[in-house]
């Protein structure tokens, strides 16, 4: 990522288009049209526009991913790539008619795929910074309570595993924070089918848990 930062470390304006240049492509003595770093009113304006766009896009994506296990560090890495790709689009002299919101989503999907491919290829990402997790919440559960909670979750998981595959996937998606629109879209189901499979799956799951003698923990 640092190499990419270096790539956008220097830019030049050529007429109405922006062109990216690497540091080693710059003339020995900086000439007028070249601007090092993010200095200069034109660069500032474009940079500011991109940052605004990225910030708004980030908010939208976070709102989608917040309850579904999105790891914030992953999103930041993707957006850094999107930022660079936006500058590259400028390098190609593309007009804004190609940079609508669909283009932004396309860039983000491509960047996410590239990120996952790189990670899997190097297989070095086998540790995780606890600060990366967005879904970690501070609670005052004692180690015993935490262990009981994990045990209950694993019992529910075991009960889910006994469901038929269509109900199982619908229930797992529901429990993982995906809504019915997500389930219907990903599985190509109608809303009615999604609703039926989900609620039948949840009913099956409750019956299984009752059969297993598993009940909600009393609170208070």
């Amino acid at each position, binding site marked *: 990522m640092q190499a990419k930062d270096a790539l956008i470390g220097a830019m030049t304006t050529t007429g109405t288009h922006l062109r990216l240049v690497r540091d080693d492509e710059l003339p020995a003595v900086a000439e007028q049209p070249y601007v090092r770093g993010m200095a200069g009113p034109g660069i500032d304006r474009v940079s500011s526009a991109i940052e605004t766009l990225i910030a708004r896009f980030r908010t939208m994506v976070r709102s*989608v991913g917040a309850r579904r296990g999105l790891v914030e560090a992953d999103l930041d890495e993707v957006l850094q790539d999107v930022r660079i790709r936006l500058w590259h689009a400028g390098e190609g002299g593309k007009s804004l008619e190609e940079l609508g919101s669909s283009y932004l989503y396309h860039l983000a999907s491509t960047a996410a795929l590239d990120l996952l491919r790189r990670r899997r290829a190097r297989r070095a990402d086998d540790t995780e910074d606890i600060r990366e997790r967005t879904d970690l919440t501070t609670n005052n559960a004692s180690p015993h309570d935490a262990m009981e909670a994990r045990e209950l979750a694993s019992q529910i998981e075991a009960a889910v595993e006994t469901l038929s595959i269509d109900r199982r*996937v619908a229930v797992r998606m529901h429990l993982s924070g995906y809504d019915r629109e997500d389930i219907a879209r990903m599985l190509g189901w109608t*809303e009615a089918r999604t*609703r039926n499979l989900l609620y039948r799956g949840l009913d099956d799951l409750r019956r299984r848990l009752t059969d297993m003698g598993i009940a909600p923990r009393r609170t208070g």
Partner: protein
Amino acid sequence: MSPQFDDEALRAAYEPALRESATTHGPDCPTEHELLSAVRGEGDEAERLRVLDHALKCPACRRELALLHAVSSGEKSAAPRVVREISWNRWPAALAASLMLAAGLVGVVRLRTRGVEDITRAGGVAGPVLVTPANGAAVRPGLVRFVWRPIPEVIQYTLEVDATDGTVLFSSPTRDTTFSASIALTAVGENRWLIRAKLQDGSEKRSETWVLKVR
């Protein structure tokens, strides 16, 4: 007879299973392209079921699935548009327009899908209608009274106040159609509120989402 889990209790009890974090893939893990295809609803159903069935229980795949879903879920709704040729020197204005379009599209799509859902779920009856605080109203931190209109066959309403990034700031079930919620200082800014209604047949209906500014 032991009590059964309701939906919220079930989700809460399952939550520790989602906290497992690992990034090492096994031989059964789908490729990143298979995950993206599943997110996009591409390919045959059996394959999508296989991929999602694995991805949702595998911590490494689940994290990837969440990322791919988050960055691509607006892809189809954000349709390409035609705009006049604009030079790169006019990026700020043009990008602002693009942003407004994107935000507008998301808003429209959400409203449209919610509308369809409400009709389907309710058999022609609309979801709860919000009354107060008015859409866009500004309140101060502290006790805020929320009011909505009742709908038939309801077991329970849930009041939910969300930050603009989707974080749930407040959520509480009630059988009444009014609720006084304590809005914390941390909620200062623009938020959203809505009512989810759980019906006797197990389905759920949602109200519109209104803006609530906390100052």
